[in-house]
């Protein structure tokens, strides 16, 4: 079986070496002659298909295992295509085998010629059943997730629409009650009425915020080339009064054009720049900077920095959640929806948003967005 070669080391006979190599492979491998008779099969083949060497070697492939390989596409592949192309890659075969059940096999075939001119077919069979099933399960779960997210958004949208109605009535009748009876009511009753209406108004804001949050995915524009510099100018102009009242300024550096939902980009920058002005330190004019950096892999990064009150880094994740607030409502108005909407917008665009800060040190918000989007294929 072995012989000494010139260098003096022990190596197996070539044929034995070949057998050992193919037996070592974890995937089934067959060697067929020109008439599709099995001349060689590795251990993985016998193991995978629960086959017996005596019933395999010398037999025509299509008669093996009670004809379980007699599959028209496989016949076509081996008898016709292979004679034209001599090498066929990744032919997927989804088949129910009597002994081992449904398997998805990936076939790679190669037509080779021996020195004596005899043609040999090498057939490597890879069992990808588990992988395919996992892919399908994953795709199914993804579809389910999309469905459930859509249902949730629709629920939020419908619920918030319907919730607005009774609130409008409470506010309207309450307001009328106030104008009709306001001055004739005892002071504490006036106070109760005012608190009641104030709470109803707050709930109205919450309901509108839920609606706005759900609309990030239900009311959308297609991604089109959007000049972020233009969007930023619009936003700064909208915030002009707030900026002037605070005695601050917003500095906008060069910004790119990216494919995005223009209205949502506006909403995003509005929230980020608005927050930067809002959460300023007492007696320190807010200075807000918006700039961009070229990111990796076709992404761009937008950075908003301020010199405001900042926040404890422990809350950096928490504040992107819906209705999370880091400050008392009496201290800073708002319902805690702004950053949640920012995150939802960024995620809809396939990007990320994060924040860093420490108390009193100002905050930095970093948004990374893809510059372009692959055209959506109909699905």
């Amino acid at each position, binding site marked *: 079986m072995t012989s000494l070669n010139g260098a003096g080391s022990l190596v197996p006979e070539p044929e034995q070496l070949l057998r050992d190599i193919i037996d070592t492979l974890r995937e089934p491998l067959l060697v067929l002659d020109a008439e599709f008779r099995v001349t060689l099969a590795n251990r993985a083949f016998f193991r995978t298909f629960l086959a017996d060497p005596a019933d395999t070697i010398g037999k025509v492939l299509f008669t093996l295992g009670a004809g379980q390989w007699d599959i028209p596409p496989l016949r076509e592949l081996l008898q016709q295509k292979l004679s034209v192309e001599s090498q066929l890659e990744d032919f997927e075969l989804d088949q129910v085998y009597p002994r081992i059940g449904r398997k998805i096999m990936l076939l790679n075939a190669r037509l080779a010629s021996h020195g004596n001119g005899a043609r040999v077919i090498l057939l490597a069979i890879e069992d990808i059943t588990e992988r395919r099933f996992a892919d399908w399960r994953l795709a199914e779960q993804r579809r389910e997730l999309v469905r459930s997210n859509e249902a949730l958004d629709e629920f939020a949208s419908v619920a918030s629409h319907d919730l*607005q*109605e009774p609130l*409008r*009535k409470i*506010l*309207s*009748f309450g*307001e*009328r009650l106030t*104008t009709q009876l306001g001055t004739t009511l005892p002071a504490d009753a006036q106070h109760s009425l005012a608190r009641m209406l104030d709470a109803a108004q707050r709930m*109205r804001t919450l309901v509108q915020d839920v609606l706005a949050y759900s609309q990030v995915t239900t009311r959308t524009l297609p991604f089109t080339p959007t000049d972020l510099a233009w969007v930023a100018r619009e936003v700064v102009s909208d915030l002009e009064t707030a900026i002037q009242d605070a005695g601050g300024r917003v500095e906008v550096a060069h910004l790119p054009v990216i494919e995005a939902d223009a209205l949502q980009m506006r909403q995003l920058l509005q929230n980020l720049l608005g927050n930067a002005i809002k959460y300023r330190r007492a007696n320190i004019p807010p200075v807000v900077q918006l700039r961009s950096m070229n990111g990796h892999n076709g992404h761009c990064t937008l950075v908003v920095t301020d010199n405001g009150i900042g926040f404890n880094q422990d809350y950096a994740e928490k504040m992107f959640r819906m209705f999370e607030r880091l400050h008392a409502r009496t201290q800073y108005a708002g319902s805690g929806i702004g950053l949640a909407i920012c995150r939802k917008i960024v995620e809809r665009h396939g990007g990320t948003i994060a924040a860093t800060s420490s108390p009193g040190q100002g905050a930095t918000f970093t948004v990374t967005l893809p510059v372009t989007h692959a055209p959506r294929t109909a699905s």
Partner: protein
Amino acid sequence: MMVDKHKIPITILICDDDEDDRMLTQQALEDAHVANALRFVEDGEQLLDYLYQRGTFAGEMGLAPRPGLILLDLNMPKVDGREALKIMKSDPTICDIPVVILSTSSLDDDIVRSYQLGVNSFITKPVTFSGLVEAMNVLGKYWLEIVELPPSIPIARA
């Protein structure tokens, strides 16, 4: 008071399925000192019955005086505001009655569609009562002092 060409006080017909809203509109009209006779119907089907004096409105003319102005909600059961508007505006005997949509909707689709169907104005219900009073005040002033209303013509019985 809103009057038509012949200085007869006009009736305002309010079509809204929501009792609270009917009450709020009535109170807002009162607070806005619009003292015209008000009639109420609760959906598009009743509105058409009223205008054609059929069903529960069949019989004496006094049951359903021809309105000089209709305030119409959009989202209602049975026949909604859109369908009722379409029917009214395609009937020459009643298409001259001014119709003002008074709806919670502010959807572009609703607004565009209503004007395409021939509505005379579209008002999104103000959120606050004072806003509603103000809207009724302006509405009253507009249809009373500025606009010339068509003289009443008899409605053909369907």
